């Protein structure tokens, strides 16, 4: 309770200064996902292939996927990753600790800050909330939506495709 209240205080203070980032002691601040933000985030990354990974603290397979992302990054995989937790800002501390544990503290991270149904709908009206849920995105368009822990082969295929696209674009 005290933890929740404290975090509540922190996030409200942050909001009141128009900066919605909640400090979690990680390199990348945890940003609060509000209606409209997902669309803005998509637009901001529209010039590059990237991956959006939705996950939550109460989803056992999500921990395996976070471990997988951590592994990929340690191995130097070329990928731009955005992680979105469907928990609440009250979970900021636990989210921050977990991302750090998996070596993902420098990934762009968000946490739901409005009714989950509304935020899910903005991202994908055909997604009912199963987790983890991963979107492989290129030029602002979803190329593939994956429910469940993504496997290395799926990711490699995507990376190869994006790599060849980028190479051919660079050759032009």
């Amino acid at each position, binding site marked *: *309770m005290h933890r*929740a*209240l404290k*975090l*509540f205080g922190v*996030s*409200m203070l942050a*909001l*009141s200064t*128009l900066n*919605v980032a909640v400090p979690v002691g990680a390199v990348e601040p945890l940003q*609060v996902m*509000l*209606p409209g933000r997902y669309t803005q985030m998509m637009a901001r990354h529209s010039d590059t292939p990237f991956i959006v990974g939705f996950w*939550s*603290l*109460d*989803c*056992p*397979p*999500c921990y*395996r996927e976070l471990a997988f992302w951590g592994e990929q990054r340690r191995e130097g995989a070329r990928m731009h990753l955005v992680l979105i937790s*469907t*928990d*609440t*800002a*009250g*979970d900021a501390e636990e989210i921050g600790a977990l991302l750090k544990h998996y070596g993902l503290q420098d990934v762009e991270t968000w946490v*739901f*800050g*409005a*009714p*989950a*149904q*509304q935020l*899910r*709908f*903005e991202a994908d*009206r*055909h*997604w*009912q*909330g*199963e*987790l*983890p*849920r991963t979107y492989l995105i290129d030029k602002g368009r979803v190329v593939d939506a994956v*429910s*469940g*822990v993504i496997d290395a082969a799926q990711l490699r295929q995507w990376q190869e495709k994006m790599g060849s696209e980028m190479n051919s674009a660079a050759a032009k």
Partner: protein
Amino acid sequence: MDVTKACAGLLLTISVACGAVAAEHDHAAMAPSADSPCQDSTQPASLRCGLTPSSVFDSRGRLWLVWVQGGHVYLNRSDDRGRTFSAPVAVNRTPEKIAAHGENRPKIALGPEGQLYVSWTQTLEKRFTGHIRFARSLDGGRSFDAPLTVNDDHAEIGHRFESLVVDDAGRIFLAWLDKRDQAAAQRSGKPYRGAALYYAWSDDAGRSFKANRKLRDSSCECCRIVSAVDPDGNPAFLWRHVFGDNIRDHALVTFAGPEQPGETVRVTFDEWQVDACPHHGPALAIDAQGIYHMAWYNNAAQRHGLFYAFSRDAGRTLSEPMSFGNYAAAAGHPSVLARDGRVYLLWQEFDGAATHLKLMQSSEGGRQWSPARDVAHADGEVDYPFLVADAMRVYAAWQTHADGYRLIPLDEAAHASRP
């Protein structure tokens, strides 16, 4: 950016954590509204500020509810179909952390002599762990005996998502998702998919429970289990299972007697192969003719959305599953109820701004259905909808931020004319 709106949106979500002192919060949890006094944790318990109500009518038409606030399960009652409510009574006197979200909420069932039985999942310190708790009232809800922990394995592992049902002989059954086999497999380095379905029963009105018994290995880990009583008076449980290589379809178990569970049968074949948590359990009703009515959600590439089917032989064969609801409007969280030859399907859809409750009815045992119609809608956060019935009518029970707990009469005309 509209700061007012942004703050309100955030407040709504955060109040889940702040309003419910020790309740486990969740993205699907209900929370008191931002402009209500519910955020003040010193507020007295009230249904308006409570989380995740479950409700049931008794034979006298009184509606009993249980819900969570501040580390307690509370009970209260309405004698006028949801217009007014009695003062809440704490079911557990000592506060504890209680699961209160869409898939896992306190349950209430009635004994044959007015006993009130309440169950819930106590969440422990570690993620994904819990105990199955049970308490009874033998004085019409004025007080409750001290809660029991029903799982006889007291390790700090998962015993969660219980389902509570009373058979026709008054015996109490609890089934839940149990991770003792998963933990044992981990200790010996063996693979184990999902959790296991365990059950226990009581023949002394909940004073004690028999030894825990496993029904099946490899259930899904985070979806609700649902239950009903068949015409022979025995319980049946329906849950999301993990078949083969991570296929998350549904399984059903019926009983010939309290110690005689049958073989579990697979009842859905959507082949949703996914290493994910759907957080989306099924619905079950059994009518007086013994026909099982089932509704569920799956999101396989070829077969996705909500489905309904009935079975005349306790799940061994099913009617061709009927797709229902608008998949593009996130149709989900179905409830099914069968009575007097009618079957009701209730679920929710989201149009980008508001959640709509949708209803379909069948007067032909599930073979033909009316078109879907809107029975209610609400902005903001909403809880799952549930069908409940008294002697005369069927209702949608629905808790929303905007309106609190509502009991919405459905199909009033059809039943009002009955003798």
